[in-house]
């Protein structure tokens, strides 16, 4: 069994962006928000949030450079 076989993961991979990075961001997004709700504002949650946005921006720019 691979992570792709898990119920929510399979739905996102089947109906999502057809792109591994964007699909992963779609899956991780709610988890980060849940983490922020649970832990509140801290250095860890802020770094995680910044990393998420940086990943999105960085990957879009990477796509641009690649095409």
């Amino acid at each position, binding site marked *: 069994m691979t992570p792709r076989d898990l119920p929510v993961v399979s739905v996102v991979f089947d109906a999502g*962006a057809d792109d591994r990075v*964007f699909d992963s961001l*779609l899956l991780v*997004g709610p988890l*980060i*928000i849940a983490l922020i709700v649970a832990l509140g504002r801290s250095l860890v949650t802020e770094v995680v949030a910044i990393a998420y*946005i940086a990943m999105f921006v960085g990957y879009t720019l990477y*796509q*641009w450079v690649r095409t």
Partner: protein
Amino acid sequence: MNGTVATVGRDLGRILEALGGLMLISLVVPIVWGEYFLLPALLVSALVPLAIGRLLYRRFKDAEAPGRFHGMIVAALGWFSVGVFGSLPFLLIAWSVQLGVPGVATPAGTATLAAFTDPLNAVFESMSGFTGTGLTMTDNEEVLPRTLQWWRTFTEWVGGVGVIVLTTAILSRPGSGSLTLYESEARSEKIHPSIVSTVRTIWWIFILFTFISILILWLAGMPIWGAINHAMTGLATGGFSITDNSIATYDSVAIDFALVPVMLLGSIAFPVHYLILQGDLRNLYADLQTRWVFGYMGIGSALLWAFLYLAGPYETPFAALRYGLFQFVSAATCTGFQTAVDATNVALGGWPSYAQLTVAFAMFVGGAAGSTAGGIKLIRGLTLVKGIRHQIADVFYPESAVRRLEINGRRLNEEEASREFMEAAIIVVLWITFLVVGTFLLLLTLPSGEYSVANVLFEVASAQGNVGLSAGITGPDSLPTLGKIAFLFHMWIGRLEIIPVLVMLRTVFKRGGLYR
């Protein structure tokens, strides 16, 4: 006739089922926040559209596939029905608190919540949400139960996706900007060839942008509940807030500036977002509408800044920039978030008339077609300007000259140009006609001398442009009943770009035998 009723009935049934499903999903919110007294009301609210929708679907499930005519009627009737049935949580929750729920501790009611015991106020709030308008019947959103704060946000978010789907995949037609804009050589006609995959693509982009927006606002200093709600309503360019004074409540420069890109994301056509996410960043400047989103917002904000600083209420250039930029972008993207309120600085209604009219003009034009923004849309404005210039220049050419109108890299022949120009002109003329009629109507119903013509025009433009900025007229007590009913109509036609509503009304009246 029967075929049409069956097709429309079947699709309407599916829409109502989906609405019931959204309410069922929302049951998580009262459970998480411990608002158990709201559960029965929300459950009943969900079951009503679910049952009616199921009934309609089962009755007409073998109906023919919808054509464009059906699509328009389903869109118009669907939006209206969703507005009406979406009011049930407001109405039933308000009455539950008013009457008390047996066996469950119910908190004391508030005047804000009590306003929703009036069905008209509840329908107004729901319609305002699903059309992404943001005008509200609440006095103080902060005292609303979290469940209703969420439901208001959710209506705008779902309505935002709905309108992108509607304009990009269902009602694409010449002059609408969503069909023709992507027909040029470099682009495919729609995001994807089929409606299903188009809808799927819009969803994942919208959800991904929502997560990004939530995190941006949270990093800017907004509490997480506020960030979730304002990111959803900001991206959907709806403008509902969970605080009493909209974004002004936070009185934070960082939050004000963080919301600007969120609103801009919502006002750019989603097919363009798709291309950008595929790495085609050229569309940021190569796409006519996107280029103008930035150009027009930049010029408009600079103009408003000049009005507010040189002749207006703000004493420092930065204060004028902060409020001018935010309010122009909020208006032009048709979001309706407000930072200019009396509690922190000078309310919009207190700005000089020319500054108010600049904001009203922004609401009139709106954002890009294929986005969540309202107004007449940039592509129509640009088509009109280019078309008029083309017509005037025609006089200087010999009759035998073959001329083409160029819009966004497409070279249109006489027939295509005429069709595009005509469609854009019809929408703009209808838009202005309804705006003028609505302004007259509101002037007649409001107490004389209380509001200026600029205030009234601003408010009607805000409702019809699905913006939600208020000069202080809209409220449960301040807006007369006739005004509320008129605003329901303005919000409805504004969201559907007028034509589908007129097609539906004509069909109902004609086939109902009300006129021949």
